[in-house]
C-alpha cells in the first residue's frame, strides 16, 4: 500500500518543531508500524536526508521504549498493544497517518519523536521498592503464603511497562495510572505492606513535583494502556493515600 505520513520533526529540545509530510510506498500489511518507519528512514538516508528519530528497542511489546502518538492515539489504533505490535494491516492504501511524540510538560522532546521520560524513573526512586537488601539469608520464599487472588492482582498491576501512554493520553497529563500500578502491586503483597504508607506519600509527592497533572477520572489512560492496567489501581492508590495521610505522623 501507499501512504502519506505527517511526522513531527524537531531538532532538539530548544527547537520549535513542525509537521513534515513524507510519502511511502510498497508497504506490506505484515510490517509492524516501526518497520514501516524503518522503510521511510532507509529512503531518507538514501536521499541524503536526516532520518526520523524514534524510540524503540525490544520490538515485542515489553520494554516500553516505543511511544508515538498515531492519529491522535497513544500507540495508534488497536487495544492493549504497543506501537511495535501495531501492524500495517490496520491501515489501508491511500491513508494519511499523523505521527507525533508523547505530549506532556513532564516529557520534554529530545528529538523528533523521542521524549525524555526520566520523570517516571524519579517517581520510582521516591518509593517504588521494598527496602530489602540483597541477602542470602532472607526467609524461605514459601514462608509467607500469598492468596492467589492477591498475587494475581499484584501481577496485573506489575505488568506496567512504564511507556508513558497513560500520561500522553490524559488531558491533564497525569501519571496516576503509572504511579498507582506500582503502589498497588506492593500494597497487595505482604512484603510491601510494611512501608505502604511512606511509599504512597513519597511517590505521589514526587509525581506532583515532576509537573504531572491530577486525575479527573476520565479513564482514557486505561483504554490506551498497552497492558490494560486497570483504573482500580488509581482507586486503590487514593485509598492508600488517604489512609496514610490520616494515620501517618
Amino acid at each position, binding site marked *: 500500500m501507499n501512504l502519506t505520513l505527517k511526522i513531527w520533526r524537531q531538532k532538539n529540545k530548544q527547537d520549535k518543531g513542525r509537521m513534515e509530510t513524507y510519502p511511502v510506498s510498497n508497504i506490506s500489511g505484515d510490517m509492524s508500524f516501526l518497520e514501516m518507519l524503518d522503510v521511510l528512514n532507509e529512503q531518507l538516508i538514501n536521499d541524503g536526508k536526516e532520518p526520523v528519530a524514534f524510540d524503540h528497542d525490544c520490538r*515485542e511489546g515489553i*520494554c516500553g521504549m516505543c511511544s508515538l502518538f498515531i492519529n491522535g492515539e497513544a500507540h495508534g489504533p488497536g487495544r492493549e498493544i504497543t506501537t511495535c505490535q501495531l501492524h500495517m494491516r490496520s491501515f489501508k492504501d491511500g491513508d494519511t497517518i499523523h505521527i507525533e511524540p508523547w505530549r506532556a510538560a513532564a516529557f520534554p522532546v529530545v528529538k523528533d519523536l523521542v521524549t525524555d521520560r*526520566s520523570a517516571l524513573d524519579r517517581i*520510582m526512586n521516591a518509593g517504588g521498592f521494598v527496602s530489602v537488601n540483597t541477602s*542470602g539469608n532472607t526467609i524461605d520464599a514459601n514462608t509467607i503464603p500469598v492468596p492467589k487472588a492477591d498475587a494475581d492482582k499484584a501481577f496485573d498491576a506489575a*505488568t506496567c511497562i512504564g511507556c508513558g501512554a497513560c500520561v500522553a493520553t490524559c488531558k491533564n497529563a497525569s501519571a496516576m495510572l503509572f504511579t498507582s500500578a506500582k503502589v498497588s502491586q506492593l500494597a497487595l503483597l505482604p512484603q510491601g505492606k510494611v512501608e505502604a504508607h511512606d511509599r504512597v506519600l513519597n511517590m505521589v509527592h514526587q509525581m506532583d513535583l515532576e509537573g504531572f497533572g491530577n486525575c479527573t477520572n476520565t479513564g482514557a489512560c486505561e483504554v490506551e494502556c498497552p497492558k490494560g492496567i486497570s483504573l482500580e489501581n488509581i482507586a486503590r492508590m487514593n485509598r492508600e493515600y488517604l489512609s496514610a495521610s490520616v494515620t501517618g505522623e
Partner: protein
Amino acid sequence: MSLDAKIPAGPIDKKWTNHKNNIKLVNPANKRSIDIIVVGTGLAGGSAAASLAEMGYNVKAFCFQDSPRRAHSIAAQGGINAAKNYQNDGDSTYRLFYDTVKGGDYRSREANVYRLAEVSASIIDQCVAQGVPFAREYGGMLDNRSFGGVQVSRTFYAKGQTGQQLLLGAYSAMSRQIGKGKITMYNRHEMMDLVKVDGKARGIIARNLITGEIERHSAHAVVIASGGYGNVFFLSTNAMGSNTSAAWKVHKKGAYFANPCYTQIHPTCIPVSGDHQSKLTLMSESLRNDGRIWVPKKKEDAEAIRAGKLKPTQLAEEDRDYYLERRYPAFGNLVPRDVASRAAKERCDAGFGVNATGEAVYLDFASAIQRYGKEQALVHGHDSNDKALVTKLGKEVIKSKYGNLFQMYEKIVDQNPYETPMMIYPAVHYTMGGIWVDYNLMTTIPGCYAAGEANFSDHGANRLGASALMQGLADGYFVLPYTIGDYLADDIRTGEISTDLPEFEAAEKEVKDRLAFFINNKGTKSVDYFHKRLGKVMWNKVGMARNAKGLSEAIVEIREIRDEFWKDVRVPGELNEFNQELEKASRLADFLELGELFAMDALQRNESCGGHFREESVETSGEQEGEAKRDDANFAFVAAWEYTGNIAESKMHKEELKFENIELKQRSYK
C-alpha cells in the same frame, strides 16, 4: 599469559563456601571511597549495581536505553530455575548442576555451574522479598512448571513475563539506591571504550547519546554486563539495540573472548515473514509444556498446506508426525533447545515445512485444551463429555498460563492460536560464548569483570531454558558482591582515579576520531544495508548447521563486507546530537569484527556440541544415528581468544575442562 580459572580446592559442594570464607573483605568505611562502574542494567548489571551500592560502594551504572528498566532481560518469558524441590519430585542442587552440565553438552566449568545451582534457591527468596509477584497456587504457595532438558518441575514463573518481573525487581532495588545517591545512573549513555591504567581496568569512555558528548568516567573496577551478541545475525530475538560493543572493546583491550561460536538457536520463534523484517519474536519454551510439535506425515499434505488448500486442523491424527515425541520418547517435546531446533530444520529441509516459505512447523495446543478442559469440568462438577464446554474451559486454562504469548502471536501473524496451531521456526536467541572469566568472574584484565550473558561461564555449548535469568541474578546478587571485594581490598588506599591521566586522554581521542570518521565518510550505503548482509552470511554459513567449507567462505565474506562498510557507509547527521544512525554504525563496526572471530572459532571446533553443529561430526550408526557427535578427546576445552591487533591472527588459548563429578558421556534424550 596462562589461563588460570582460580577454581578453589576441595570437594565441589564445599568450594564456594570455603572460597567465601577465605576471601578478602573491604570494611564499610573503605567501601565508601571505592567506585565501581557497571555497564548494562539487565538482570546481571541491575542486580550487581543494586547489591554493590547496598554494600556501600559508589556505583556508576550505564545503559543505552532511556531507563534501566528497559534492558532486554525484560523480554525473557518463561521462567527462572531454582533447586527448591517444592514439588517433591526429586530435585536437588546436584540435579540442577547435573542437568545444566549435561544440557550444556559437557562444555562448561563444573565449579561455576555447581555454584550457580547452589545459590539458585536464594534468588527466589530474594525476589519474593522484593515483591516479585510469581505465580502461586490456591494454597498461596509458589507454583512451578517444567522446561526443556529436565525431568523435574523447578521453574518459577510470572505468566509469560518472568523476565519483566525479575528485572523490575532488580530495577526497584536500583531505584532505591539511586534515590539514596549510592548509584549514579547514566541513562542513554553508551560505553565506547575501556580505559586501562597500569594494566588495570580504571574507567570507561562513554557517549552521552542525547548530546553526543564524549565523557570520561573513572572507577576502581569495571563490570561488563552488557548482554550477548546475537544481533551479529541481524535477525534475532534480541532487542534492536542489543550489541556487543562493550564486550568487544574490552576484548580488544586484552580480555580473552571465549567460545564465540556457541550460539543458541531457539526452536520456538515466529517464522520470518519477509525482507522488511527487523527482528524475530520468541514464543516461550514454556509453551512446550503443553504444545505438541508436528508436521504432516505426507509430503503432499505439507504441499497442500503451503499452497493454502488444506488447513492443519483438517489433518487426521494419524497423518501427523509428532517428530520430537517419535525421535525422543523420554523427553518428547521437552528436549533441549539445540536438539529441538535441529529436528525442526531437518523436517523442513526434507520438505515438510508448513508455511509459504517452507520454514515452519506446528506447535499445537488442541490436546492440552481438551486435557485441561476435562479436568476443569470434573473439578466444577460439569459434564466432562460436553465438548463445547470442555473446549471453552480448556481455553481459559491455556489463557491463564500463556495469555500474553497467545496475544503476541495473534498480533504478529494475524491467526488465532486457540483455534489453529501456531507456526514456529528456530531463531537466534542467546549466546553462550562471551568474555572469558575466572571463578571470580574477573576477565583477563585485572579489575574488569563480566557478568550474565556477557560472560561465557555457565552454560557450556547450550543453555537450558529458564537458566539465563538464574545466571544473571546469581552473578549480580550473589557472586560478584563477594568476589569483587577480594580484588578491591588492595585498592582501599588508592583514592579517586583521575580522569586527566594520559590513558583517558588517549582513549577519548581514539573514540572521537572513530566517530568523526563515520560522519565524514559520506558513503553511499546505510548501516542496515551492511548489517543485513552480515546477517545473511552468518545465518547461511555460521548458523544451525556448519561445515568447514562454508565457514572458510564466511570468514572471507565477512572481511569483504567489513572493508566495504568502512569505505562506503553513510552516516547522516552530526556528532554532537542525538544520532541513532551513528550509534548503529559504531555497533556494527564491532559486530563485523566479532563475526569473523565467531566463524574462526566455529571452524576450529571440529566437533558437534550443543548449539554448535558441524555437519562433519555426526553419529553414523547405532541408536544415536544422525545425532550430533562430540569429540571429548580433542575438544573438551574452552577456546579463549586473545586479540593481537588483527582478527585473523587472534591467538587461541585452551582452558582444559576437567570433569571430576560428572561422567562425560553422550547426551541422550531418547
